Structure formats: C-alpha cells, structure tokens
C-alpha cells in the first residue's frame, strides 16, 4: 500500500492571495501527523486541500492514490473523514436523524447508528435536534458518524477544542481505530503541546509554508 498523502511543492491561492506554498508532505498508512500553527496560518485551507475539496493551483500531489485536481478524487472522497471547525450537523434534524441520513447517503446500514450512539454516549440524547444540542454533543455526533463511515484518512481541524475529557477520549479512540486499520490521521491545532502528545510527527505551518518541528 502506497502513502495515503503525497504533496509535491503544492501551493494554493485564494482570493488572489497566496495561502499555502511549497508544501511537501508524505503521510503513510498508520501515521498520525500533527500540524501546528497560529490562527490564520492556513491550517483549515490545508485540511480542505487534503480532503480534496479544493485543488492546488501550484505543484501537485495525491490523496489515497487519487491525483489532486482531477476527477479521480471523486472516487476516494468517501474514504475521507473530516471534522471541521463548525460541526456538519443539520439543525432541524435530531441527532439520530442526522446519523441515519449520513449512514444512508454513505451506503452504510442505518442499523449501525444505534451502536454508534451507544458508544459515544448519546443514546438518550438522540432525539435532541441539532439546533438544541451543545457543541460537545455535536462533536460526539460527528464522532459517531465517523465510527459508522470508517474513513481511511481522518482529518481533524481543532477537533479537541471546547471538549470535555470524555469527548476528547472519544476523539483519541477514533484516531487509534483509524491507525489500527492502516488508516492515517492529520490533525491541525494551534496547541503544539497537545499535538506532541498525540502525533507521531509534528510540523509547523508558518507564512504558508510547512516546516518540521525541531
């Protein structure tokens, strides 16, 4: 199995401004890569690039074997799991309905939703609508979704921010499960110490460039 992520001198500009440049990364199966950087350094843009949601306009690369910026990425998106800043939960639906919707669209058996709810501790809270749920509950919902979809590449954008100890342990368990099954994890955070505890390798993002931490 080849590397899950390869970036060769990749760069991206948004709105006429260069956000990321000269990115060279290789992430192998089982790796946990941490990327640290201050607010506004381009961490979220980098994660969206790795999620194949945006394409590089300089250099190139591949994610899960699909060349970035080509239609090949459509076939691998289902193997990517992303936790963004803002939870991707439909407010008007309950937690359970959100998970069943995602399970059906992702081609997964909706029966697994109940097991996932039990594991993340949301069985009783499952009828609560997204708009009435706390941030911690929404993050657990996302964790449940990722347990169901079993991504091969897990991308976490400040996923631990604002979470209690239990919820943080859940994200850690997700990371462990992904790497145990030959998946890879890339997590971004402004908290270098937090990343150092969890990642096998930490890089820093500064002025749009990635450097290995000393």
């Amino acid at each position, binding site marked *: 199995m080849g590397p899950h992520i390869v970036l060769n001198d990749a760069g991206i500009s948004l709105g006429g401004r260069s956000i990321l440049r000269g990115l060279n990364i290789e992430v192998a199966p089982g790796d946990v890569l941490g990327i640290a950087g201050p607010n506004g350094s381009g961490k979220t843009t980098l994660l969206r690039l790795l999620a194949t949601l945006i394409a590089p306009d300089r250099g190139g690369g591949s994610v899960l074997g699909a060349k970035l910026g080509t239609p090949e990425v459509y076939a691998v998106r289902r193997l990517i799991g992303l936790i963004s800043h803002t939870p991707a939960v439909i407010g008007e639906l309950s937690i359970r309905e959100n998970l069943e919707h995602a399970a059906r669209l992702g081609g997964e058996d909706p029966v697994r939703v109940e*097991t996932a709810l039990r*594991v*993340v*501790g*949301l069985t009783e*809270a499952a009828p609560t609508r997204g708009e009435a749920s706390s941030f911690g509950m929404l993050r657990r919902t996302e964790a449940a979704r990722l*347990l169901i979809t079993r991504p091969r590449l897990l991308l976490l954008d400040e996923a631990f921010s604002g979470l209690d100890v239990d919820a943080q*342990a859940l994200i850690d*368990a997700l990371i462990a499960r992904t790497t145990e099954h030959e998946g890879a994890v890339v997590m971004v955070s402004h908290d270098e110490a937090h990343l150092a505890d969890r990642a096998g390798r930490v890089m820093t993002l500064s002025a749009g460039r990635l450097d290995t931490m000393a």
Partner: protein
Amino acid sequence: MNRIRILLATAAVAVVVGLWFAFTSPIDRLQGEFSRILNLHAPFMWVAFVAFAVTALASIMWLIRKTPRWDRLAEASVELGVVFTATGLFTGMVWGQAVWGRAWDWADPRMASTAVMFFVYIGYLALRRAVPDPEMKARRSALLGAIAVIQVPLVYFSVNLFRSLHQTQSIRPDGATMPREMLVALLVNFLAITYLYFALLLARLDLARIEETSAADSSLAGDAVKPPRLSEVNDV
C-alpha cells in the same frame, strides 16, 4: 383537566343549541334559507375581534409585567382568532356566493380589510415560530399584538365609512333592525360562539401550561449525555 373537559362539553352543547335556533328561526324574505348562515358568520367574526382585543391586552400586560402567562394568553387568543376569522370569511363567502352571486366582492371594504387583518395575524404566528428564544419571542410578539389590534375597529366600522354591499350593523344602540325571533337566534349564537371561544382558550392555555411544566421537569439536556464506551469502539 376535568374542568376543561366539562367546559368543552358544555360549549359543544351551546353550539348545538345555537345551531338549532339558527335552523328554526324565520328566514329573510330576500335571502331565503341562506340567511341562516349569518347566524354563524356574524358571531364568528365578532368573537375573532374579541380574540384579537384579548391578544392586545395580554400583549400590553406582558410588556408591563413580563410574566409568561400573558404571553401564553396572547398566543392562544391569536390562534383562536385566526381560526374564527377563517371560519367567518368562509361562511361569509358561501353566503356571498349564494346571495350576491359572487364569493368575493372587492367593492366591500369589510371583506378586504378582514382578509388583510387575517394575514397580519398569520404573520404574527409565523413570527413566533421564527424566534427560538422565549423572551425575545414574547417581546416581539407583544409589540406586534399591541399594534395589530388597530385593524379591528377599522374592519368593524368599514361598513359605515364606505358604501358597500355588506350590511351595516343590525344591532345598534337605538335598537335592532330585524324581527324578534331572528334577533333571538342571532343572540343565542353570539353567546354560544363566545362561550366556545372561552372554553377553547382555557383548554389551549391549560395545554400550554402542561407543555411548559413538562419541559421544565424533564431532565436537563446534559443529563442525557453519558460517558462514551471506548472499549466498544470497534463494535460499530
């Protein structure tokens, strides 16, 4: 709850009695049997006006006191007012089609102004649904409820202000313009529909109170979140 059931049951009896009077009273020579509809149309519209006036008073009381029960009263009264206005409009259109040959007459300012009033209160209900925070919902609704009532006298007196096909008030300070038996039937229905309104209002308030109590009694959202079962992660 028993008290409410008794109220609703007696209100139903009152409505049936009113209908009996409506079907047994003399009919208007020109309008024929369709004149009986007026025994429902006029009381429904009258009670709608009362309902919106109650809303206005409750809204003003909420603005002064800020206690939830005034907001509950305002909302319950608007809901009923909208239903009674819709029924009044519908019975009026049926009567209009039968007697004037058209269900809707633009020459009648009362019809148009009633329809406008109806939609303003539909907007009131939509406004309430759009605001999740109870305090903000109550404040915005109270402001609208207090202002919107200005339409009620405009609708009521529109038949006096403008020449229209709608008849002017049949019951006036100087006496009534209809025969005694027809007046009795009309008054019985006024009383019955008004009693129905109050019974439904109290039932609706009771329901609102139960809903609020049950929401307050239910476990806090946080209690429903349990510790994760990390050892079962691979079972999903």
